[in-house]
């Protein structure tokens, strides 16, 4: 147990749950299905972080491993991305994609919880981050689900945030939303990068990137929803 592999993922988990609470409160006050879906996505993010922290403190057990793989590796990006789809796409498209995502998630749940695990690959001896992959899942067709969910999630969440920022920038309006969306896009990309680096043997890259990703997305959301008070010096220049 150390700061990097235990406290950092627990920290990510705590921030994610706090962010989810903010999103649920906002959903309660304003409605908007995107807020509810982002909240669900951040709950998944928090579950993933909690499982990693648990792994750092006590090692894997099959339940924690399956929870981590389902929520942390497969579902989180796609459900966050689904929130952005509701914000940007036509309702009929968004409803259709939500039905597909829900069915896909149920299928993923059945496959992950029904998968055979190799206990020898759920090692606790190395903390290079290399354990944070699905190698312990030996049943075929389970790990191959991950890239499809992540492809959808990355395109929708990062692409959606970057597209929104670009639209605001092009019109030179709502600077706070431009900045907030850029932070959300960067925060959403960090865990994907951390995962890649951790599998290349860079110790702790995943935990650091997940922590920073949660912080950036949280700050980005607060920034995007809090208008900047414009002073004469800061206000958009009229030429």
């Amino acid at each position, binding site marked *: 147990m150390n700061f990097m592999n235990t406290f950092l993922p627990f920290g990510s988990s705590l921030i994610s749950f706090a962010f989810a609470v903010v999103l649920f409160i906002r959903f309660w006050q304003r409605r908007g299905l995107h807020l509810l879906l982002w909240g669900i996505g951040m709950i998944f993010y928090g579950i993933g972080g909690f499982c990693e922290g648990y792994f750092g403190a006590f090692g894997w057990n099959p339940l924690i491993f399956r929870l981590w793989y389902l929520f942390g590796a497969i579902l989180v990006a796609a459900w966050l991305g689904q929130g952005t789809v509701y914000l940007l796409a036509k309702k009929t498209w968004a409803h259709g994609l939500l039905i597909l995502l829900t069915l896909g998630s149920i299928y993923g749940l059945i496959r992950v919880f029904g998968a055979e695990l190799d206990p020898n690959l759920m090692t606790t001896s190395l903390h290079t981050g290399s354990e944070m*992959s699905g190698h312990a899942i030996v049943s075929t067709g389970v790990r191959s689900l991950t*890239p499809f969910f992540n492809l959808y999630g*990355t395109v929708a969440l990062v692409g959606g945030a970057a597209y929104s920022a670009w639209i605001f920038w092009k019109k030179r309006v709502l600077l706070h939303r431009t900045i907030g969306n850029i932070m959300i896009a960067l925060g959403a*990309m960090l865990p994907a990068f951390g995962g890649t680096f951790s599998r290349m043997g860079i110790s702790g890259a995943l935990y650091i990137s997940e922590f920073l990703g949660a912080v950036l997305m949280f700050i980005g959301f607060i920034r995007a929803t809090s208008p900047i008070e414009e002073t004469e010096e800061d206000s*958009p*220049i009229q030429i």
Partner: protein
Amino acid sequence: MPNKSKKLQTKREYPPFWEKFIPVALIVIAVIVVFLLIVIISVALGIFPFMR
């Protein structure tokens, strides 16, 4: 007429720092997204099986 031509010349701008920072950030994000998509698609196709 003078008012109309003045109106046409009006262009909103963000503060100077953000005018420079935002396009750079958006280009960086676009490049990273393309890289991530290549990695994810490669994983899906089995080219980088170690990455999942």
